[in-house]
């Protein structure tokens, strides 16, 4: 898509901010314990000051209400610099769920904090090894005056240890829907760990944990997942773009047999193929984001298509990037491996290539 003036300004702002304030080396600092907060707080505050954490929050609640194309432009830049923040969890997944929740109290309570980065929220929607968001073992029980309580376990809850608010999916007897659970709630246990991309993640257990239902039921969950997948597609495109740029630089610079390895046709054709794949993944990701913003009926097929394509392309680009960097690509000193790890985790999140391909087929009626 061609960006309009506002979108171009936002893209420039995001590019400047992440170039100045985000550094792939932060991944190592968090991994090795030199930063112990689990995320890049300085960057997160800078994103808050620039309004990027409120990109999907309505203006009435202190946000920019910029739409998903804008959220994707930010995610693409975040992907390029491996920004270690709870952006997708809080500013995209939680902000979208709360926005769709039809509950003024919850919105007024949480959205302003999400918008200015003073609060972090996340989504807990996975249970087993694989993403099956509508097939839930976690139960919600209505207890009369006592309110609702949740019982169950969740896996792959990103940024849970840092979160002030968890939006947890549970079966309420009729079907899946979201519940708000505050940090420190009774019966909530968070077993925090790091993933291969050094991001903070947790398994959580809910034992008769008090929770507040989000209005709108399953549509709020589905809106959140759709926005998250579309934005992750843009982040994966950013990762692929950066890996490809670095690999292209290496093809120019690295000399063997008396010439630049980029002059070898065996590598040229693979690089040329990658460049086409990346352009397609990017075009599809922004087409999908645009379709969501316009609420087009085709968005339900476009979003899983975009996520599947971006995940596959980022994986291929990272694998080719490591191979073309030769032995250096296998070292921790080079950043390529960091991108490969993030591509793996982001590719898996909210439905991997296989899940999204199948979801696309369903949306197309076969």
């Amino acid at each position, binding site marked *: 898509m061609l960006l309009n003036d506002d979108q171009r300004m936002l893209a420039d702002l995001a590019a400047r901010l992440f170039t100045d304030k985000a550094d792939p080396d932060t991944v190592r600092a968090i991994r090795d314990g030199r930063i112990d907060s689990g995320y890049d707080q300085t960057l997160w505050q800078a994103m808050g000051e620039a309004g990027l954490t409120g990109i999907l929050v309505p203006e009435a609640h202190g946000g920019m209400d910029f739409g998903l194309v804008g959220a994707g432009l930010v995610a693409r830049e975040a992907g390029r610099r491996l920004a270690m923040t709870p952006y997708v969890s809080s500013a995209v997944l939680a902000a979208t769920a709360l926005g769709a929740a039809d509950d003024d109290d919850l919105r007024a309570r949480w959205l302003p904090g999400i918008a200015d980065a003073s609060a972090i929220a996340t989504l807990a929607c996975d249970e087993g090894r694989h993403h099956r968001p509508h097939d839930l073992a976690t139960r919600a029980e209505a207890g009369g005056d006592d309110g609702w309580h949740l019982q169950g376990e969740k896996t792959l809850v990103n940024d849970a240890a840092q979160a002030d608010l968890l939006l947890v999916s549970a079966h309420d007897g009729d079907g899946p829907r979201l519940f708000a659970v505050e940090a420190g709630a009774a019966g909530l246990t968070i077993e925090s760990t790091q993933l291969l991309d050094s991001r903070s993640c947790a398994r959580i257990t809910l034992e008769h944990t008090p929770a507040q239902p989000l209005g709108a039921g399953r549509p709020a969950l589905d809106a959140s997942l759709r926005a998250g997948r579309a934005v992750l597609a843009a982040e994966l495109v950013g990762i692929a773009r950066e890996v490809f740029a670095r690999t*292209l630089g290496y093809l120019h610079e690295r000399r063997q047999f008396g*010439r630049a390895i980029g002059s*070898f*046709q065996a590598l040229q054709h693979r690089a040329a193929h990658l*460049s*086409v794949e990346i352009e397609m993944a990017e075009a599809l990701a922004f087409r999908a984001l645009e379709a969501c913003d316009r609420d087009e009926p085709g968005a339900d097929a476009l979003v899983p298509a975009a996520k599947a394509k971006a995940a596959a392309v980022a994986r291929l680009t990272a694998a080719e990037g490591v191979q073309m960097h030769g032995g250096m690509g296998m070292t921790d000193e080079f950043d390529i491996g960091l991108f490969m790890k993030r591509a793996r985790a982001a590719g898996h999140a909210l439905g991997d290539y296989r899940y999204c391909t199948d979801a696309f*087929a369903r949306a*197309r009626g076969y």
Partner: protein
Amino acid sequence: MAELEAWRMDVRDWLAANCPDAMREPVRSADDHVWGGRRWVFASEAQRLWLERMAAKGWTAPEWPVEYGGAGLSPEAHAVLREEMARIGARTPVSNFGFWMLGPALLKFGSEAQKRRHLPAIARGEIRWCQGYSEPGAGSDLASLQTRAEAHDDDFVVNGRKIWTSYADRADCMFCLVRTDPDARKQAGISFLLLDMESEGVSTRPIQLISGESPFCETFFDDVSVPRENLVGELNQGWTIAKYLLTHERENIGGEPPGLLKGRDLGTMALAAIGADAEGRIDAPSLRHDIAGLEIDAMAFRALVDDVRARAEAGQGVGARSAMLKYYGTELNKRRYDLMMDVMGAEALEWEGERTHGGQYAREWLRSKGNSIEGGTSEIMLDIVAAHVLELPRG
């Protein structure tokens, strides 16, 4: 915007009143494609009428200026016309190399006299053109072509041999690349000539392909005299035109596939051919997954083509990026036909008979293998992307 919507209503009304019902039927076989030309025999009165009416509007070449037989439409107005034609399933009234190749070349490089003489005849479907580029010894290395044209005072005398000339045996005229300066560096001595296939000394021989069809010929020139006025552009500057046309040709790739797959998606085809499971899904999970994977790639390709078009309309050049589209679009099409064969199974193996319209599945599948060879191989496209988009050093 309002202007375009008014235009859309006009187009819709005109098409409703003027497009014969038979011309709204899906294209079933090669006979349904109107190539035009001096020797053209219409398969039906509806074909003839449809061409006549569309040509009278200038809508056979909608973006060409009115004085050259077109309608002078803007790209946006043309897009509306295309959409409205697609909406009712209207067939293309006529097409041949004159429309998509020679026309654009003459508009850019031709003299006023050449434009006035050739373009209206193409637009009316009166002259069928073919393209004479490749030679037995000059395929991917096109600039090494050897067909000679000796310049005399009032004509050129052409000797040599072309190959892969599409329908040379049925075309009226050919635009071709010939060597006019054998001593110059290879790209520098080439000129762009127009010649009449009825000229003395021209002969053709069809080449039978693996699909059983013969869309291509070998063409032989034995002392063929071509008038000087048939030189397009400057003498020895033909390579510029050839490069322009090759780029233009690649930019046009990315449309809907023709034939059996036109307007049909493989998912629907597979549901009908294989049947549905209890959930109403294609009852063959691995095929379903492959089809979805292909359709996702097709969707991504379509999104890229739309972006490239939008950038071109906004005045940002396409240039070497057209090689990206040519490469991926043709590879995608081959994958699509491979999957179609998987979907149709044994039926797709039939080579003759009514049920398959004479083995149309098998023949179209085999024909698709040429997509990534004709108009520049996939490997040449990747070379172009590596050199001109990625700017990698020459090997």
